[in-house]
């Protein structure tokens, strides 16, 4: 096509034609400058559409229409347990990342049986030498416990409000997987300081794995790095705790909440 300028689209002339204040001129000039390069008008239109959608008149909810809230308001706080699980998870993630700066997953350094290992020593170092380290470990540990408690109570809330029924079965199954992974998260973290109880908890884990027919030995090698506990066990638990589980659990939580978003919260009947 020919490249002659079309006068109608001369925005600058249009600007001059009008009687504008300095602020208005500056605003419009900036807007036009950005829009010519990034075409933001399209996005503004999208935002506008979303705004009007969100403010549409919505049908009354079941609870409102049948005036059921008077029986229900005192259950509402229980509906925040899912979000509280997420908050506790975030606190654990942040404090855990900071603990990770100082922790070393190694059983080296024990001259005789029962001597402290490098992993144990690094936790002692966190407790005694690192600024705020004692508090940090305490917060991490309690965040984990708050999360497990919140998840368990969230499951009870879903059960006793019948929120798992059609069409939410998939989210319930996903939840069962999530609570299992949350517990395993706690277990793998419990092993990391390599103290007496860590070791013997892991020992029970290995024995359970080995007692399973067919897949048992394979599982023991995959999760614990062998049939007896040692450096391999610690590193595997470490990688599970700080790499594999965070990714898996975070994505599953995102999926879980995404499904809730799509399906809506189950209305009490």
């Amino acid at each position, binding site marked *: *096509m*020919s*490249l002659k300028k079309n006068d109608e689209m001369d925005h600058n002339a249009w600007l001059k034609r009008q009687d504008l204040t300095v602020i208005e001129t500056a605003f419009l000039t900036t807007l036009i400058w950005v829009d010519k390069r990034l075409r933001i008008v399209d996005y503004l239109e999208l935002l506008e559409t979303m705004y009007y959608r969100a*403010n549409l*008149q*919505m*049908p*009354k909810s079941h609870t409102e*229409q*049948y005036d059921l809230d008077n029986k229900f308001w005192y259950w509402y706080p229980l509906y925040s347990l899912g979000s*509280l699980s997420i*908050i506790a998870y975030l*606190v654990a993630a942040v404090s855990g990342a900071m603990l990770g700066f100082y922790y070393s997953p190694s059983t080296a350094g*024990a001259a005789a*049986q*029962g*001597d402290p*290992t490098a992993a*144990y020593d690094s936790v002692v170092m966190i*407790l005694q030498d690192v600024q705020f380290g004692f*508090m940090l*470990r*305490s*917060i991490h*540990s*309690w965040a*984990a*416990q*708050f999360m497990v408690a919140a998840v368990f109570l969230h499951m*009870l809330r879903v*059960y*006793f409000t*019948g*929120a*798992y*029924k059609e069409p939410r*079965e998939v989210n*319930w*199954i996903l939840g*069962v997987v999530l609570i299992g992974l949350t*517990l395993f998260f*706690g*277990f793998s973290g*419990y092993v990391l*300081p*390599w*103290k*007496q*109880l860590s*070791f*013997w*908890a892991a020992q029970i884990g290995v*024995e*359970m794995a080995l*007692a*399973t027919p067919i897949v048992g030995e394979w599982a023991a090698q995959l999760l614990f790095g062998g049939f007896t*506990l040692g450096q391999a066990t610690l590193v595997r638990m470490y990688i599970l705790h700080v790499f594999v589980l965070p990714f898996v659990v975070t994505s599953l939580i995102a999926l879980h909440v995404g499904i809730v978003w799509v399906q809506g919260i*189950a*209305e009490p*009947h």
Partner: protein
Amino acid sequence: MTDDNEPMTDGGTDEDARTDGGPPATVPPDDETPTWSERKERSQGLAQLTYQYFERSRREDEDLRAESTYVERDVLGFPAWPHETIRNLAITSFFIGMLIFIAALMPPHFGHPANPGSTPAIILPDWYLYWSFGLLKLNPLNPQLAVLDGNILLGNEFLGIIAHGIVFGAIGLVPFLNKGSARRPVEEPFWAGVGVTGVVLSLTLAALAIQNFFPFELDLLVTLTFLLPVLCGIITYAVLKTMREGYMYDLNRRYYMLRPPK
């Protein structure tokens, strides 16, 4: 092919200023791309079924909307700002505040370094795994499952693993066993009873895990572990069943006032 004097796309006529390469040459407009309805007609097998189902589902949705007696309301809910935002901030900061407060008050214990050579007297996981640990201590039950002259059929640990499978499996099956639109515990006393049984069972199993702290006989503890939950379940069932009639009457009355039966 048309003549060479085809007007330019911007309506100009100056042949020297032509930059658009002239009118279309030999390539006919591409009508090979099927339209939406053509795709639907042409498709077969699974694709066709998918289209058909989508159409049905959309029609069903429209019908339901048309029939709906739902009353419109003016606003969807509280405004996101400031109501929801402040409420969420309040809940979040209270929760994190309590977390930090408790963390400061009760720092976790830190024990001795691992010693593969000496088994501690009490091995315990964190409290939230007590129930799982309790499932591993079901071995007093195991001899009762024995068939061949006193030999146990399953290893004690394997019994524990099966028990875990049963617990998770049973929880996962719930939505497929309990169907229907009832939501409240009073509407389904049986399932409320099952729920209470489960909760109490998780507590008694935890008690079984720390059996050393209980001064009575192991046999009694194992019996209580299973008896107590069932008892609590039955009580729940009885109470809710009794409440049910009056409660449902009240609920139904409110439904019928708004939507009288035809």
